[in-house]
């Protein structure tokens, strides 16, 4: 099993605010990230796929295809947007980097385990850096014990 990671970038704004909570509670929890006008980040996204090396090509995944999937599913949706207002899934869900990270995992997961030549690898991890000091990683939920 080999893990291949590709790095991408996008820029977006957001506001951390939960409508279900009173204003003073939002301010207490989110601090300056609750500013009503929002603020932005240059996000760095790492997408890791895991699979065996294809014997014919020596590669784990078709990088051009991976770039195309990430461009279509993630970057076109999120880059240069206001996450709260422009991205459907964040109308009812606070766009913390945790939530953006898991959302990206779910956007990519089914598209990456497509099978076919150089598509046998699966999505293994999404890592999202909000700043150079803060980053979040999601590897999908473990299978339920039941």
């Amino acid at each position, binding site marked *: *099993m*080999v*893990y*291949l*990671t*590709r*790095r*991408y970038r996008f820029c977006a704004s957001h506001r951390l605010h939960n409508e279900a909570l009173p204003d003073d509670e939002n301010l207490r929890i989110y601090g300056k990230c609750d500013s009503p006008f929002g603020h932005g980040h240059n996000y760095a996204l790492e997408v*890791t796929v895991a699979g065996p*090396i294809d014997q*014919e*090509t*020596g*590669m*784990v995944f*078709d*990088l*051009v295809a991976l770039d195309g999937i990430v461009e279509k599913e993630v970057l076109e949706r999120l880059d240069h947007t206001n996450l709260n207002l422009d991205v459907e899934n964040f109308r009812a869900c606070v766009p913390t980097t945790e939530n953006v990270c898991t959302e990206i995992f779910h956007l990519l997961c089914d598209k990456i385990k497509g099978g076919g030549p*150089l598509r046998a690898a699966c999505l293994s991890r999404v890592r999202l850096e909000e700043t150079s000091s803060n980053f979040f990683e999601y590897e999908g939920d473990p299978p339920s014990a039941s």
Partner: protein
Amino acid sequence: MIYVTRRAEFSASHVYHNPKLSPEENRRIFGKCNNPHGHGHNYTLEVTVAGSINPTTGMVVDLKELKTLLEREVLQLMDHKFLNQEVAAFATKIPTTENIAVEIWGMLAPKLSFGKLHRIRLYETSDLYVDYYGD
């Protein structure tokens, strides 16, 4: 268990080409990496060794020994080389970053006299890297 990582750099050229495939198929799969004259990268290699702390030295590995091992087993073989033509392993195997990472694991794992090789991470560029854990 403590994990110690040592970083090293090497520069090399390569070409992606499978002689069993037609020229058109090679170009379709490998794109500009199929340029017959090759192209090169500054690779960054991270070698992670796992072990317990030696109570006498407070260290997991002798970093000088690890550096010497990397120099002897990997860098001398690959640095400033055309991988396809000058590294025996790649005479029959395409030197993709995936295959290079696995090859480096094979070069180092049996030679470590301390700890246990945990991970090989190989950066082809700052935006692309491969991890291999030996299985």
